[in-house]
């Protein structure tokens, strides 16, 4: 089995490298097609490797020769296998879309090469067995993602967005290096397995410092508020599959980093670790969905939704840590399983939604939801796939989002089993915030699907949309995956339990999946739910009334009349709701948070009705930019300006520096 696993992983590496090469060598349609096939197959190999690892519990490990910075060890742990499954699935879907979404040319070649290098780097992040491999792979992933985002670098705003992405990534990377540095120094080794064995060496303040550095360092990449700006900056400007990769994979790698360090490399810590992670998750989830409701740009909206979902994942992880440190290992394992499930689910439906948004963007030339409309009739396949993704991400039964959020809720609701009242109350607050997020998310995604796809087209671009030659395969694959992840919940949970058991040491399978395709949250006396039967029930509830109506209907007694629109002469698209107005109740409720800036201008001062077009502009106050990022940037610039005299350009001064440095080294060395 180990051999098969290693073989599959090598296959994935080779195929992706091959795809990159093909992209370079074949700058034509067959070249792109070949790259697509190789990429897809590589993704499939990675997916199968992940599944096989969880199914067979084999331990695949490759140790290469020792280099300068420690040996290069590649290990596939069950925890990494979960993320590998997500990586493989998304890579398959994105690869399947290449032929129809990329025109052959130099820009495409560069893009495909950097994309496949990013895939390889992500693979190595997951397979890393030593600190060196992890850090090198992580940085390569950041750099290649930056190149991905720069595909349309001549367009306005792309360079700035990509720069913000890499700048914040580097700040996070500095913190990650610091954390791993502390870990390596205290445990005296760079190998993860050895670090795990010697975790006890991180007592007291060192463990706290590492945890905080890791949480904040990975938060930059995961897009957790207030360190989230990279995501809404880079996702809208990257091409659709690049944005899908950034949102679906890169953020999950950050989650993998947090899991890896908190659960494997750090010893059991105080309860406030879990509570801090949970509060960070709560803030990200609630603020993420609130800001997403104010977005008109489809991809920026999806970026904020990613922030919200990462918040949910972090609530689950934080809860897991809290339960672990409060002597409730079963619930800790349950919440870890819930977090991993949500990782899988979110990768699937977020990638799907980004791909569909990209299809619409190419077909209509528009990303602004307020200018779209009526796409369901013009692009039915795209609409259907997007509908599956929307139902999934809004956590509506019976799809996969519902299953993972149900598990998170059930885990949090059992906070009463912790004896500390303060902790229990904080967990309840987290559950309440999650409920708020869930409700707002349904609103946000009803808006995201309803405004562009339903109703009448609000602009010429939307009216002229068609599905001719638009990619469908990738989206269809992900939609199928959503349904499989929902209906096959017992199987998925069995697999995730293996991952959780390997990470936390607690196996709760018998208290998670019970006979009869039912799922229970780690305690038999709490609640239960069967995703399969729920799906069957819902379909039945839909089908039975339809059947009755069909059978009971008399022939030809139906009359079709136009939609009642108040008897007005002509129903114009401008009379419909827009995305802005749909979210207006939320805007009014949370006005103190948004502090929007309104601008109303008229073409002339003539009396009402004759004044010409009225322009209504509305902008949400960018709180984090204004109060966090800009002051920090100004501070750094201020320091840099003060330090500038050092770089005077005077050669004599530089010689003085050299002399000073030699003197210092001499004094220190002699000592």
């Amino acid at each position, binding site marked *: 089995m180990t051999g098969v696993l290693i073989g599959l992983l090598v296959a994935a590496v080779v195929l992706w490298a091959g795809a990159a090469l093909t992209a370079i060598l074949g700058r034509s349609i067959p070249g792109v097609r070949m790259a697509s096939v190789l990429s897809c197959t590589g993704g499939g190999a990675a997916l199968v490797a992940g599944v096989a690892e969880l199914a067979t519990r084999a331990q695949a490990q490759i140790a290469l020769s020792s280099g300068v910075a420690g040996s290069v060890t590649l290990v596939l742990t069950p925890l990494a296998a979960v993320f590998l499954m997500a990586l493989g699935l998304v890579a398959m879907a994105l690869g399947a879309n290449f032929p129809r979404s990329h025109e052959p040319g130099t820009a495409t070649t560069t893009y495909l090469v950097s994309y496949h290098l990013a895939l390889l780097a992500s693979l190595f992040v997951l397979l890393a067995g030593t600190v060196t491999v992890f850090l090198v792979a992580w940085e390569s992933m950041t750099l290649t993602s930056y190149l991905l985002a720069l595909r349309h670098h001549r367009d306005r705003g792309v360079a700035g967005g990509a720069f913000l992405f890499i700048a914040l990534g580097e700040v996070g990377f500095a913190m990650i290096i610091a954390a791993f540095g502390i870990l390596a120094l205290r445990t005296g080794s760079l190998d993860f397995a050895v670090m795990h064995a010697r975790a006890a060496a991180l007592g007291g303040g060192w463990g706290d410092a590492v945890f905080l550095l890791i949480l904040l360092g990975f938060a930059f990449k995961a897009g957790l508020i207030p360190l989230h700006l990279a995501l809404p900056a880079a996702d809208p400007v990257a091409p659709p599959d690049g944005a899908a990769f950034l949102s679906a994979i890169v953020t999950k790698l950050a989650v993998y980093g947090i899991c890896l360090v908190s659960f494997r490399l750090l010893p059991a810590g105080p309860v406030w670790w879990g509570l801090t992670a949970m509060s960070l998750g709560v803030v990200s989830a609630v603020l993420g969905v609130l800001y997403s409701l104010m977005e008109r740009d489809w991809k920026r909206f999806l970026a904020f939704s990613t922030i919200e979902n990462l918040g949910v994942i972090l609530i689950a992880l934080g809860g897991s840590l809290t339960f672990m440190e409060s002597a409730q290992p079963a619930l800790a394992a349950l919440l870890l399983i819930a977090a991993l499930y949500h990782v899988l689910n979110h990768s699937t439906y977020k990638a799907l939604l980004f791909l569909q948004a990209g299809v619409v963007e190419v077909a209509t030339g528009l990303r602004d939801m307020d200018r779209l409309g009526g796409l369901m009739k013009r692009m039915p396949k795209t609409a259907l796939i997007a509908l599956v993704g929307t139902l999934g991400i809004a956590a509506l039964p019976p799809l996969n989002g519902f299953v993972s959020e149900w598990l998170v809720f059930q885990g949090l609701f059992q906070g009463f089993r912790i004896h500390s009242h303060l902790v229990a109350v904080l967990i309840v607050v987290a559950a309440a915030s999650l409920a708020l997020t869930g409700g707002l998310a349904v609103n946000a995604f009803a808006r995201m699907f309803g405004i562009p796809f339903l109703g009448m087209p609000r602009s010429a671009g939307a009216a002229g949309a068609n599905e001719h030659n638009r990619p469908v395969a990738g989206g269809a694959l992900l939609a199928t995956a959503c349904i499989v992840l929902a209906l096959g919940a017992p199987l998925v949970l069995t697999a995730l339990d293996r991952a959780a058991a390997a990470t936390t040491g607690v196996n709760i399978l018998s208290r998670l999946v019970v006979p009869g395709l039912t799922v229970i949250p780690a305690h038999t006396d709490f609640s239960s739910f069967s995703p399969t039967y729920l799906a069957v029930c819902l379909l039945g509830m839909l089908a039975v009334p339809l059947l009755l109506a069909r059978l009971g209907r008399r022939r030809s007694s139906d*009359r079709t*009349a*136009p939609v*009642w629109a108040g*008897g*007005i*002469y002509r129903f114009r698209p401008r009379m419909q709701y827009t995305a802005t107005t749909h979210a207006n109740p939320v805007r009014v409720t949370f006005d103190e948070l948004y502090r929007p800036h309104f601008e109303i201008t008229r073409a002339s001062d003539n009396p009402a009705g004759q004044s010409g077009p009225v322009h209504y502009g509305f902008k949400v106050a960018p709180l984090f930019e204004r109060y966090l990022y800009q002051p920090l940037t100004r501070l750094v610039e201020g320091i840099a300006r003060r330090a500038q005299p050092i770089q005077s350009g005077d050669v004599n001064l530089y010689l003085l520096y050299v002399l000073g440095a030699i003197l210092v080294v001499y004094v220190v060395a002699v000592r």
Partner: protein
Amino acid sequence: MIENEEVDRRRDAPPALRSSSVAETAAELHRRSVRLFGRSLHIRTIDTGSCGACESELRLLSSPRYDFHRLGLFFAPAPRHADCLMVTGPGTLAMDHALMTTYEAMPDPKIVVAVGACPMGGVFGRDQYTHGDLSTQLPVDVYIPGCPPSPLALLQGLLLALDRSQARMPGRTEPAR
């Protein structure tokens, strides 16, 4: 529907040619459809250019003095929910489209009630801005004369539409010679 065809024929023919059997068939069809409403009626009102007096009287139907809810009568928020269309006003041409779309938006079976003198050709009659006679536009089931008809007259007319009341004309109508 065959009932409308009967009414069309009745509308065009002068009174002398109207045969009692046709009237009976129309009445029977009307009774059958009205039975579907049970004892209750959901009413949609439409103003095709009236002076507003009929609307004032219609509005008073829901006041505590007349309280049409106790008789099972309701105003509907949209024609989709309505069984009955009460038309006031002389049928201005500007409201043609609205009147037709409202009528078509109502599901079958439905009844049309002409309220006031205007839809029966009074006050304005037929001129360059109005149709005058509502029965040239829609098949009218019940006529409620008055200018405006008091809420009590409206109640009587609506109950008549539901077959819960008899027509109470004074004396007798002498036949045309």
